[in-house]
């Protein structure tokens, strides 16, 4: 049946975390499909100019409330690369543990609070808590564990305070690590429960595929399902590009639909995030994570963007299982005190890590006093905008016959599946007094 569909999910100023979805179709003919991102340009890069290399992390950790550890790690690695600062194996391992806590925190939140309500046909987690209280409680317990894990290693839940160029200001004690180890072992049951609940509604994951280039880190030495070390690779490219050459991968450009920069590499767009990491690195997942992928029928080469949420569940299991092994290693070696001193010098370099929502690049240049004279940050969400647009263009004609409400909902679900970070730097209250 020929359909006329007009979708205009348009958010006015001061609505947070938004992009606009515009679809116009008349008598079954699609006239306009657009993913518009009217994000205010970010000025954080300007904010770090003139600041000491020792202050960069504290500032950029506030760019985002969800990915504050990730921004902190990317910037600290960039600073260390620029100033030639080395990090001990112990500090490196503890930082990766810190990073894993944020992966768990973010993935569990995204799947539990944003994706699960969609799959159960509910508007938000609030009604879901009434319908599936056990599952929501499992999500909340996991989120709490991840928060306390961040607290322990990063010094607090968001905006870490223990990182410094060259290492950490404070290491967890062996007693604290043993307690964390016990809690991580115990949380496996909750992870399985969440996976089971999502699996029970997995029939509602839209069946949509588009041939896509997936970009992520890869690490060969030693072979690792990496979030932290390695080079840049893609499903369209057999080799690897040094993270210092990230601009030749991102190829950022301006687009009329958006004030955020878009990116492309071998195709008109590429995708980053959990599914990209999975597609590039799946054989290196932990055994339990592989089992969860199998449970959902998720295999390497998957080009259904909605499956990103499933890849997040797989990764949540992976980071817990891997952390258990890493804590064992740290305890066997024993925690040794470190007192690293650094000194300023001129230099320019990049740092790169995988944010929960995809690969993140930071680049800084410092003068001989160690003051920042230039910065360039490329966030994962901007790298996904072109892919979301291309998904829209393929998906809309496929679902047009389902009517306006279904088109709107499915496009919103598609955006959510990318787990975007849009305008997340402020969260003011907006209230009216009722009494």
């Amino acid at each position, binding site marked *: 049946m020929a359909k006329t569909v007009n979708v205009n999910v348009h958010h006015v100023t001061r609505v947070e975390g938004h992009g606009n979805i515009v679809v116009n179709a008349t008598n079954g003919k699609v006239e306009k499909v657009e993913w518009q991102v009217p994000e205010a340009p*970010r000025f954080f890069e300007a904010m770090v100019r003139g600041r000491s290399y020792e202050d960069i992390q504290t500032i950029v950790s506030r760019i985002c409330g969800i990915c504050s550890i990730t921004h902190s790690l990317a910037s600290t690695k960039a600073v260390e690369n620029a100033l030639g600062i080395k990090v001990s194996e112990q500090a490196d391992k503890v930082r990766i543990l810190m990073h894993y806590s944020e992966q768990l925190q973010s993935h569990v939140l995204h799947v539990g609070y944003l994706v699960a309500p969609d799959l159960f046909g509910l508007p938000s987690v609030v009604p879901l*808590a009434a319908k599936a209280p056990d599952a929501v409680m499992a999500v909340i317990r996991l989120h709490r564990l991840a928060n306390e894990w961040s607290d322990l290693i990063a010094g*607090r839940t*968001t905006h870490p305070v223990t990182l410094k160029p060259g290492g950490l200001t404070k290491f967890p004690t062996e007693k604290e690590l043993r307690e964390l180890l016990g809690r991580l072992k115990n949380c496996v049951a909750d992870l399985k429960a969440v996976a089971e609940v999502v699996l029970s509604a997995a029939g509602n994951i839209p069946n949509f595929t588009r041939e896509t280039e997936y970009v992520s880190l890869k690490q060969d030495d030693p072979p690792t399902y990496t979030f932290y070390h390695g080079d840049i690779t893609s499903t369209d490219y057999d080799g690897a590009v040094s993270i210092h050459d990230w601009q030749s991968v991102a190829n950022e450009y301006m687009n009329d639909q958006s004030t955020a920069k878009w990116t492309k590499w071998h195709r008109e767009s590429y995708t980053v995030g959990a599914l990209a990491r999975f597609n590039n690195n799946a054989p290196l997942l932990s055994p339990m994570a592989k089992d969860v992928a199998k449970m959902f029928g998720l295999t390497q080469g998957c080009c259904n963007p909605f499956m990103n949420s499933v890849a997040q569940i797989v990764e949540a299991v992976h980071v817990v299982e891997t952390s258990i092994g890493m804590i064992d290693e740290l305890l066997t070696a024993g925690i040794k005190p470190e007192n690293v001193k650094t000194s300023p010098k001129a230099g320019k370099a990049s740092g790169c890590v995988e944010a929960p929502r995809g690969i993140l690049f930071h680049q800084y240049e410092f003068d001989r006093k160690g003051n920042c004279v230039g910065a360039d940050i490329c966030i994962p969400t901007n790298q996904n905008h072109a892919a979301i647009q291309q998904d829209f263009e393929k998906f809309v004609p496929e679902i047009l016959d389902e009517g306006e409400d279904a088109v709107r909902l499915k496009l*919103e679900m598609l955006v959510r599946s990318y787990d975007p*970070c849009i305008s*997340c730097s402020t*969260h*003011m*209250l907006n209230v009216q007094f009722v009494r």
Partner: protein
Amino acid sequence: MRKPTVVLGLGNPLMADDGIGVDLVERLEQDADRYPAVDFIDAGVGGMSVLHMIEGRRKAILIDSACMDEAPGTLRRFTPEEVHSTKILAHQSLHDADLLRVLMLAEQLGQAPGQVVIFGIQPQVVEVRQGLSGVLLDRVEYYLAEIRSELERSAG
């Protein structure tokens, strides 16, 4: 060990007056010794993490910038029941969060503190820059006095 009362400072110090909550909680923390039963937390743009910070407390005091249709710099003390949120969430991202909805969820899960008090401060400027506007900066002592008297009442 969790203390019975928690004071959360919310906001982003990189966004001018949006950082008022964090600024005030840092100042309050400087004389934390006066309040042995109170945890002071810089919660940043805490979002859902607020749920865990308030869980198991007798009282939670939240300090945040708030659009209340008041003159810039105005401070209002209110409880969640006294307001309704006019915030429209796109629900596209984890990053959009509404403190009042987080409190609602805490209530529903039986994890809400016995008492929740919010100090909302109407911002003058919210834009990417560090530091509070003069209007708010001039009133910092007044804000601190109001929050301290709330803490004295809690102790009593």
